[in-house]
């Protein structure tokens, strides 16, 4: 069966260029980059070249790049690492985050609040498009604020956040400014990070949304924000992240960034067209609402909800027809679950239950999009007919 892959936002197809660049570091002698012999020096050079490339991609100095085991670890290190410093010198520490953050951020913040009485989490509300309310943010800021964390792009809806405004209030309102972190995992395939994060102190990225390996990411620290290691041991990454650096993983990250940057203009032009085509077609399907249609969004994501239908059933029939898609929110069991993002946006539960995220990338073709439109349209009509038949039957005696 032909496979139509519309789940780039979950994990993008691995790029051959990445696989090839990683290969030499996955067989035979691979030195420990902390060692002092020839093999170690070779490994160290590869790591530092990767570090330079990651720094340039984000627009930071190489010394600010901390290699991690992925996006979740990066977010965790930012939240816990900065808050731990703050709480040692303050009676009260508040972590200020938006209501639509990825669980990597919310769970790290909630963990800190659970573990330390002096730490609390303050949530910034969002509007109906899921965009943070900057006035509400400014009201939450105080001397107690340890860190502000607002994502660059939402992973479920693809909606962009106003990072410039977030940074302005975080820096202007409080003397000395409040450190800011952004989860740029969903933004990295689409936006120029040096531009959108120019005033952000800490930036989390990962490789596998860019066609790189999973379990590879970085936290980039700008402006010398003090940070404690969450996992000390061995002193690697300037004492900020213990553990031997995985040469293949960081080479994979760097090459994935390089390929993404090189192709960004071409891919963006093409995928924006697909986004328009898909959005236009889906809006004709019965009960379909495009999520945040007027908001600034990245090209790759189309998020929709179908009133009266269940994500579980849509995904099942799409899967049977060869389409890989996602409901965007799932729990640890793998079940589609009600999204905290849609709830924060005020999307009614009946709609949220029928949510679908279709995400595209460099490999997506127009033929894929045409096939998706045909398949999804038949799936939705079929479920609609069945649901109508069931509810008609139920009205009987």
């Amino acid at each position: 069966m032909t496979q139509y892959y519309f789940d780039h936002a979950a994990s993008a197809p691995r790029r051959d260029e990445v696989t090839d660049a990683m290969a030499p570091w996955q067989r035979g002698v691979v030195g420990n980059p902390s060692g002092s012999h020839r093999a170690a020096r070779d490994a160290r050079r590869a790591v530092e070249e990767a570090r330079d490339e990651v720094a340039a991609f984000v627009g930071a100095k190489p010394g600010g790049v901390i290699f991690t085991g992925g996006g979740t670890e990066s977010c965790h290190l930012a939240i816990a690492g900065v808050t731990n410093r703050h709480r040692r010198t303050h009676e009260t520490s508040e972590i200020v985050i938006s209501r639509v953050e990825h669980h990597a951020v919310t769970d790290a913040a909630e963990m800190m609040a659970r573990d330390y009485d002096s730490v609390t989490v303050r949530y910034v509300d969002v509007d109906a498009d899921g965009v943070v309310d900057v006035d509400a943010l400014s009201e939450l800021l105080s001397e107690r604020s340890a860190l502000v964390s607002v994502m660059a792009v939402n992973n479920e809806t693809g909606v962009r956040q106003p990072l410039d405004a977030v940074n302005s209030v975080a820096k202007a309102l409080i003397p000395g400014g409040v450190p800011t972190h952004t989860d740029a995992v969903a933004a990295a395939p689409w936006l120029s990070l040096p531009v959108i994060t120019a005033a952000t102190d800490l930036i989390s990225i990962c490789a596998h949304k860019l066609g790189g390996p999973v379990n590879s990411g970085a936290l980039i620290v700008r402006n010398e924000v003090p940070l404690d290691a969450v996992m000390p041991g061995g002193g690697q990454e300037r004492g900020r992240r213990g553990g031997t650096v995985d040469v293949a993983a960081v080479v994979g990250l760097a090459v994935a960034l390089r390929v993404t940057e090189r192709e960004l203009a071409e891919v963006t032009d093409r995928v924006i067209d697909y986004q328009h085509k898909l959005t236009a077609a889906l809006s004709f399907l019965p009960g379909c609402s495009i999520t945040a249609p007027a908001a600034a969004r990245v090209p790759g994501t189309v998020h929709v909800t179908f009133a009266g239908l269940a994500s579980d059933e849509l995904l099942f029939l799409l899967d049977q027809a060869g389409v890989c898609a996602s409901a965007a929110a799932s729990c640890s069991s793998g079940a589609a679950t009600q999204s905290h993002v849609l709830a924060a946006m005020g999307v009614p539960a009946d709609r949220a239950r029928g949510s679908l995220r279709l995400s595209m990338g460099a490999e997506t073709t127009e033929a894929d999009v045409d096939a998706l439109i045909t398949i999804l349209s038949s799936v939705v009509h079929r479920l609609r007919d069945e649901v109508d038949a069931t509810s008609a039957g139920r009205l009987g005696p």
Partner: protein
Amino acid sequence: MKVLVAMSGGVDSSVAAGLLKEAGHDVVGATLKLWGGASDSGCCSVADVDDARRVAQTLGIDHHVFNYTEEFERHVVEPFVAGYVAGGSPNPCIECNRHIKFDLLFERATRLGFDAVATGHHAQVVRRGAEHLLVRGADDQKDQSYVLGYLGAAQLAMLLLPIGHLNKADVRREAERLGLRTWDKPDSQDVCFIEASKGREVFLRQRATLTAATIVDATSGEVLGRSDAAELMTVGQRRGVLPGRDGERRYVSRVDLAAGRVEVGRLEEILVSSFALDATSLNFAREPLGDGAVVLAQCSAHGRAQRATLRHDGRWWLELDAPTRPVAAGQSVVLYRVDDPTVVEGAAIVSRT
């Protein structure tokens, strides 16, 4: 045939899926995520879902997780709590079967294009002419026809019970033969959303205020003790009731939450000879039975079926041939045929007399 197998992560449904696959059916496994809170298999029952998924991988069939947490809360958990608060003893497994597995899941299976739904229950569907009969499982000790008592003709026609003809030891042997990791997994015991280490009382206290009561011998007036959760005292039960001064065992005969009073008596004092049935719950597998129909009535999952006569004169009740311990309101009674005692004829919920 295209078959959707409800896979709980236990050995029975694992083998059910395996046998259907071997028989050449087009099999898809689905695990229902029912409870989102803490449970004995971790939050969201993740360990059970992992087992089901791994079994599906081993068998080479597709596996999906369906989220029914909202429906489970509404149709099973809330009525469970409300039932106790109202002084009854609800059976959540039966409600889950009625409203989730054999209602919502069947509807979903139809929408998704399946010809049949299969489960790992120890019971059998036997086709006789145009009829589909629900019959007890081959293993007396494990028979689960009781919890399937509410199935109607349309559901039985679409239901496959691939392990109903096996006893439990055979099921485990089949699982081992198929290389399934659940082959030695212990049988599930109590209610899935209640942690065994904490029990019903802890669960109910999180959602309701429980009633303190005095335990009184109904005949002598003697106070035999106190309960700080009278909702959990069920008529007919002996557990938690101290013997009377005469040293004889006492059984709960009546729970009066409003008065904070639990009445107990000697076994012979509490026996009853009839139960009232909730008319709206009454369900027949085939054509409806009427006043005077003689049946075998089973009042708990592994209880003994007893001869009884169905009565109807506006309200419904069961007249028992021999006096028996009372059955709490909210419990189900499943009716089997007198002339064919393995065949389920219908079911109803016991109501207050």
